[in-house]
């Protein structure tokens, strides 16, 4: 049972007033979506929740322990991150890349063994990129790289997934497959926090939503309470038309 909590948290976006402090608690089995326009601080929030950036105020707690006081290695066994941007300095194969997900579990003297390899292969298989295992990452397409990043976190098998736009670069089928994979995690008492741009994916897959406004204001709660057209129109500064398909709301931008 892993809980990720933000208490009185104000993320550090340079040159922005503090706005509203966040008090959220991500429980096992929940899927949180973070929505907001460009520059609202979604990525900054995710990195702050992961302990990779210091907050301006407040603190993040993992199972009641302040994140900053925990060892990075301990944190990495509980929190996995899918980054939005990635850079490959040195050539590496797809398999090697997925394998680094096991890094937090191995002692310094341990080599990756058969079990690690099995987990990595299974993750590649799950993301439909097992056939690319020998390829250099630099030769992959954007969507394939995105799936590799997800496969790496799947290999890491964290209790809490922090995903920054996990459907970036993915085709329609793989967008749905990825959201299904993330939702599946909750069955094993894992939790997911993801930044999304697609309102409809958020409406379909998230049970909690956090809306981040560019001025630092924020509101959060159960998804159905947050998916109010007026609030979303104000969030993006965009008029929306709403329909219902298969029982879920669908938002379409209108002029």
């Amino acid at each position, binding site marked *: 049972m892993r809980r990720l909590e933000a208490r009185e948290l104000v993320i550090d976006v340079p040159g922005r007033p503090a706005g509203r402090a966040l008090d959220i608690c991500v429980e096992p089995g929940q899927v949180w979506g973070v929505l907001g326009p460009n520059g609202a601080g979604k990525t900054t929030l995710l990195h702050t929740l992961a302990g990779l950036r210091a907050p301006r105020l407040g603190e993040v707690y993992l199972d009641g322990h302040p994140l900053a006081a925990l060892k990075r290695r301990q944190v990495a066994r509980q929190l996995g991150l899918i980054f939005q941007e990635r*850079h490959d300095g040195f*050539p*590496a*194969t797809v398999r090697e890349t997925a394998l680094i997900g096991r*890094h937090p579990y191995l002692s310094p003297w341990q080599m990756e063994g058969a079990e690690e390899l099995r987990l990595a292969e299974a993750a590649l298989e799950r993301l439909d990129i097992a056939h690319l295992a020998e390829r250099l990452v630099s030769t992959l397409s954007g969507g394939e790289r995105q799936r590799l990043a997800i496969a790496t976190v799947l290999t890491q098998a964290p209790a809490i997934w922090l995903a920054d736009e996990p459907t970036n670069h993915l085709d329609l089928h793989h967008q749905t497959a990825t959201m299904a994979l993330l939702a599946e995690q909750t069955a094993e008492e894992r939790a997911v926090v993801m930044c999304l741009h697609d309102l409809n994916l958020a409406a379909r897959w998230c049970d909690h939503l956090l809306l981040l406004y560019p001025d630092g204001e924020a509101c959060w709660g159960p998804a159905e309470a947050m998916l109010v057209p007026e609030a979303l129109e104000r969030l993006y500064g965009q008029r929306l038309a709403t329909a219902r398909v298969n029982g879920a709301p669908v938002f379409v931008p209108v002029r």
Partner: protein
Amino acid sequence: MTAFIRPLGALALAALTALVLSVALGSVTLAPAEILAALGGQGEALSRTLILELRLPRSLAAFAVGGLLAVAGALMQVLLRNPLADPYVLGLSGGASVGALLAMLAGLGSVLVSGSAFVGALVSTLLVFGLAHGRGGWTPARLLLTGVVVAAGWGAVITLMLAVSPADRLPGMLYWLMGDLSYAGSPWPPLVLLAIVCLLAVPLGRSLNVLARGAMQAAALGVSVRRLEWGLYLAASALTAMAVTTAGSIGFVGLVVPHMLRLLLGNDQRLILPACALAGGTLLLLADTLARIMIAPEQLPVGVITALLGVPTFLYLLYRSQ
């Protein structure tokens, strides 16, 4: 693990062959039997002196310096996440050179020249790190830029010193700048340092692999990035300072050997770092042997030979790779 043994074994064999060659060849060529006898403490007094007191220490020093430079280069490339980094990119050799040339200008002996070079390297290391730190934290890009600019500053100081030096000191100074193993002294300090770093590479190698993918990614996977980067910087600086102090500034080994090995062996630091130690050592050993025998009894600066050997090899490997 078994995947590592084959390439490392082959490289160790190459290093041993190069060592035997370098001891056997010279202005006087020795037969294998004579070498064995001398190593066992027998044989003629003259060939014993030649082998045990002249050639073997110099060969071991050449091997150690080559290994140190290649490993330092590989570490710098991971630290700066930049394939163009080499041991000298942060201005360390410039500082060492200024120290050494100052000692030479003052007419000091070779021990003091080495000591002065070491102090110069240290000053440069602290200068670059302090300046790159500035008021914020340092990023690889900022460290790199600071290092390059400090190196340019040292370059100007070196040129100035050469311009105002008396003519009879110039050849010694130029040889030092191009790398010269004839004043190497005891090979043991660099050899021991090289062995220690190779042993540390085993437990730290996986963390370095993760760090090579970026600081954020590494932190997310449980690496204490700041601490590891500090360690890398200090280790690479110590290795380079030791190499420069032993043999002057020898270019090229630290840049090209890690790349050659990455092209051949992939990019697992647990393999690449010990492989760099062996291959860098072998390259410099061969280069130094050639430098001694090509126009014997005169000697060529070893840095020239490393480049002449390394450039075509590297270009061939690069051309052949995908």
